[in-house]
């Protein structure tokens, strides 16, 4: 077996047994969030990297997932670990709706709609006071587990989400669907002309892309036992996803994962270094600066730059797709 196959499996095994050795909440918490971001980044990349449509609104779906899961457990007593997959599907359906609004035409509408969606859903969460608790938020019942193992379901939950995200992304990359998405990214007009149903492909890709954010939001809400409109729609989440994908390499399977494993621990370390009073704001500025610098000087990211440096294949091929033209999809 090749290193590319062995390494991820070894790492997965390591992460599975790690909680037996490491009992410190700090490290498990850090890893849990890294898994969460990696899973969401892999999701973001299906739309932003493969299809080349940059979403500025993934946190809207994260927040949607947080609220739906929170409301289900508070009003109907359905545990989050049971509802999470369905919350993901719901996020996907909402994503498809937004996609239908904004992806039938090329270009700007998508940016506009993803940018504004977060605010709309936040406004709804804030104004439906009777149901969501408005600005004072929603308290989720605590899991009935001993304090030293309560983190484990979330740790493994996020790890499972990451594994599923990677497998879905891999499956898409190996399919005609993935090839169609790459065709859309490279030359949408020609993709359309050669029979790719571009609107349907884009809408489907976006739905899949946001569903991971929905599930992550659901688990996150139960992890904190709390949701409120500020926490659920924290802008930094979208920003992190974009930075992670760009740093690792957009359009590659492992780029977003690598990006998350680099950026998240570093980011947490920087927060730890800055005085807590201004940490949030300074963090925002720092991430903004990082985004601008990465876009200006390293838009291809680590993996693509590395593979093309080694001279092998020029620009790294983002898909392992069969070498045939996509057939008409309708």
């Amino acid at each position, binding site marked *: 077996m090749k290193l590319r196959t062995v390494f991820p499996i070894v790492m997965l095994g390591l992460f599975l047994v790690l909680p037996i050795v490491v009992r410190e909440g700090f490290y498990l918490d850090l890893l849990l969030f890294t898994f969460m971001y990696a899973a969401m980044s892999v999701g973001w990349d299906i739309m932003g990297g493969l299809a080349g449509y940059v979403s*500025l609104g993934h946190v809207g779906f994260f927040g949607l997932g947080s609220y739906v899961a929170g409301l289900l457990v508070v009003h109907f007593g359905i545990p989050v670990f049971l509802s999470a997959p369905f919350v993901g599907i719901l996020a996907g359906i909402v994503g498809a709706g937004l996609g239908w609004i904004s992806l039938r035409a090329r270009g*700007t509408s998508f940016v506009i709609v993803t*940018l504004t969606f977060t605010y709309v859903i936040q406004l709804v969460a804030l104004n439906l006071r009777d149901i969501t608790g408005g600005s004072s938020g929603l308290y989720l019942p605590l899991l009935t587990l001993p304090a030293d193992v309560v983190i484990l379901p979330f740790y493994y939950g996020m790890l499972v989400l990451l594994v599923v995200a990677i497998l879905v992304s891999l499956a898409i990359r190996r399919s005609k669907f993935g090839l169609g998405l790459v065709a859309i990214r490279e030359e949408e007009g020609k993709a359309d002309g050669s029979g790719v149903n571009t609107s349907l492909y884009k809408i489907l890709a976006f739905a899949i892309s946001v569903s991971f954010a929905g599930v992550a939001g659901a688990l996150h809400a139960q992890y904190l036992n709390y949701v409120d409109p500020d926490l659920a729609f924290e802008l930094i989440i979208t*920003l992190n996803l974009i930075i992670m994908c760009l740093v690792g390499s957009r359009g590659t399977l492992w780029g977003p994962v690598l990006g998350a494993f680099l950026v998240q621990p570093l980011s947490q370390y920087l927060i730890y270094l800055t005085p807590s009073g201004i940490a949030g704001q300074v963090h925002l500025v720092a991430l903004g600066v990082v985004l601008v610098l990465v876009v200006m000087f390293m838009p291809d990211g680590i993996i693509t730059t590395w593979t093309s440096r080694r001279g092998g294949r020029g620009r790294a091929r983002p898909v392992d797709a069969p070498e045939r033209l996509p057939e008409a999809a309708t």
Partner: protein
Amino acid sequence: MNPQLLGQSIVLGILTGGVYALMASGLTLIFGVMRVVNVAHAAMIVMSAYLSWMLYRTLGLDPLLSIIVLMPVFFVLGALGQWVVLRRLGGRDLTLTVLVSFGFAIILEGLQGSLWSSSFQAINTAYSLDSFNILGIYVPLVRLLAAGAALALLGALFVVLSRTNLGRAIRATTQDPRSAALVGVNVEYVTTLAFGLGVAMAAAGGPLLGMLFAFYPATHWLWIGKLLAVVVLGGLGSLKGTFVAAMILGLAEQVATVTISLDWAPLVFYLFLFGVLIVRPRGLFGTVARESL
């Protein structure tokens, strides 16, 4: 609804709509020449509101007069930013330009938060609470002044765009950069100046925003949504369309405020925005996609 309340909301709607038109004018201008949504536009407006607030508190400079100071400064910064950062990204990949403007929006928000904390501010001048009555309709003085200033600045922008060589070059670039280049327009140079002009219009909107509404660093997310609704309804890139759309949305918002509720009124913008995109996926006066088969 009683007629007096309706008259009241129409007057307020028109006055506020004028200010929305001014704030959106820069966004539509920049979209016109670059084909990119400047995500940082509202953050620039809020930045200008903060600076105007500072100028008023420290030097006692009237917010309306601070427009004269802020516009040139923002023009230079905007043009410089375009020349140094955005121009380098070129037409290679428009998504990169969007990402940079997203980054700048966040940098501005974080800077405002670290400099002035994240609590609400408003510019309260000596005449902030003055108002007068016309036929039983209550007209706040600041709204009237802001609308007057907005109209004057929009008029000036319109004259620049329609009567000067730079304006003609900007309009030519908006229509088709390649053809504009063919007839001797230096597209790079014109794009930079147009970007600077758009940012200067954002600077002009800041003090007006600060006089009429409370603001805090994250408010720009609300505003960018409102302004995008205006710009999309007006047909991306069209100044006249933007003006009409700003009036329609200003009115719709005020009417929604009195008939439905203050909390839900902002949703009017998004309903219009999504509605227009559903009916006309390319925007109301959608332009033909440049890339062809």
